[in-house]
């Protein structure tokens, strides 16, 4: 592991640890309102000031980071499992199943990701409880984000289906689910891991996009998306620069994720 990766790893772990320790580090709950100090500038009491309804911004960032950083991997897990099911199984079965699965993934990939995501989320109820909104948001990410991974997995599984060891296992009388679970799936693990890690930053960014458009996590629960929505009211950067902290944190964490992911996975 090179120095840049080590630093990135430390940053991601530190941010995760801070968000998990939000109950102890935050000066107040994410929904607690300081009605005597709305839109207050940074002070000893409120490190990053308060928002328009007097909630401590630092506390909301800590809790929001927890939601975004914990649920993006959960959504990535759902999408990777779906991709393994659709792509892995289709590649293993081959023939008509593979063609059907590829047609289905092509259909999903022919729609731009943001178009699909925003449209589907907008179609679902928006006036729901905060907890339900969190579940809907991240479940949608998981259920819609499987196509690209499934495409990769179907190709890998197709290659494995025709490999020597699978042919030998078949010749030895191994068939059906056992062959898939014992010989094919374990060999797809590296691809599955790669697709899982690649999905996390994509889902973090997607949640942020949804949140800014008011389609993400519902108030008063914070997430990076809803925190970034505060930028909407900004007139200039010089006026209240501390409002840019959630954006800077997002950039730092995303950059760290990118550095952690190997070059081969991210680029050509």
């Amino acid at each position, binding site marked *: 592991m090179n120095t840049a990766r080590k630093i990135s790893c430390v940053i991601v772990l530190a941010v995760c640890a801070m968000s998990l320790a939000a109950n102890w580090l935050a000066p107040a709950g994410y929904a607690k309102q300081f009605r005597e100090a709305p839109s207050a500038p940074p002070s000893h009491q409120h490190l990053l000031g308060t928002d328009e309804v007097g909630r401590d911004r630092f506390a909301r960032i800590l809790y929001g980071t927890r939601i975004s950083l914990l649920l993006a991997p959960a959504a990535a897990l759902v999408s990777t499992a779906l991709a393994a099911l659709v792509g892995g199984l289709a590649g293993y079965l081959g023939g008509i199943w593979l063609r059907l699965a590829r047609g289905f993934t092509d*259909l999903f990939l022919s*729609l731009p990701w943001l178009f699909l995501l925003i449209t589907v989320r907008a179609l679902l*109820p928006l006036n729901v409880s905060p907890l339900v909104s969190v579940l809907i948001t991240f479940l949608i990410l998981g259920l819609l984000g499987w196509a690209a991974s499934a495409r*990769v997995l179907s190709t890998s599984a197709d290659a494995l289906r025709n490999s020597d060891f699978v042919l030998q296992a078949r010749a030895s009388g191994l068939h059906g689910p056992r062959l898939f679970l014992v010989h094919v799936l374990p060999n797809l693990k590296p691809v599955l891991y790669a697709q899982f890690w690649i999905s996390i930053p994509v889902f973090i960014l997607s949640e942020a996009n949804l949140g*800014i458009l008011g389609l993400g996590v519902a108030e008063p629960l914070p997430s990076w998306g809803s925190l970034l929505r505060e*930028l909407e009211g*900004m007139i200039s950067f010089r006026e209240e620069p501390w409002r840019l902290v959630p954006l800077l944190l997002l950039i730092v964490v995303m950059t760290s994720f990118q550095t952690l992911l190997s*070059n081969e996975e991210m680029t050509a």
Partner: protein
Amino acid sequence: MLIPKMLLWKLARHLAAIAALVLLGGLLSATLVRLAPGFDTDERELDPALNAGSVRALRQSRAGEHNILHFYASYLRGAIHGDLGTSHALGQPVQSLLRERWPVTARIAGFGLLLAWLLASTLAFIACLWRLPAYEILGTTVSGAFLCIPAAVLALLSVILNAPGYLAIALIVFPKIYRYSRNLLAKSYALPHILAARARGLGEVRILGWHVLPVAGPQMIALAGVTVSIALGASIPIESLCGLPGIGQLAWQAALSRDLPLLVNLTVLVTLVTLLANSGADVMTYILRSDGRIRPSAERGSAIVNAL
């Protein structure tokens, strides 16, 4: 005579695939809207001034949309005759809405893509020619930072800074093109025959035009197709937040109001444009390869989709 025949066959296959995917995309969209909670509710029904007969008439006007297959079949029949239906939310024919809004999106996405490609490919070429570590770090950092900013944040920043919408699209697409093309060019420049050409004293322009581009060309063309899809996707948050009356803003309004006819048409349009861009890139690569102007490469567009 063999090549045009094969080309025609390839074109026919592409067109058949596009037609099938567009039809399926439209059906998928119609099904999603039909299943969406609140689809049956028309806000006008809540108007206390309406009597029972008017409410019944309102419900009757949407009765044709309850059976999705029936709706889709009648939509396709209408579309063949040039009737794309009427938007429930905006009360206007969908055809006129698309005619009004499409130029806005085409202009924003077109300028944005042009700017992104100019910027990214120029910087990538310079990075490969100069090979300065400081420049490499700068390029990677800047493109990496933009890669980490959500499209909606760039839209908000463009509103704050009073910047045009196409600049936001350019900044969304730029890092993807830069990173991919920079790596692609670096790989091409490292090929043995290019190193040999350089050792023999060939000029950089000649190396680029005669040796590097023919190798990197197919993937660059495929990347161009993929970036159209990215730009179209980014147009929703950008047009919605910047108040630009384009297709993206229309899709946003259609989804929020569960406007079935409008959303189906928009899905069909977006799918069609995306697929045409990707297939166009594929066919262009095929033509250039047949001419011998570019060389075969193992990687294709689908690999780029995954890499981006």
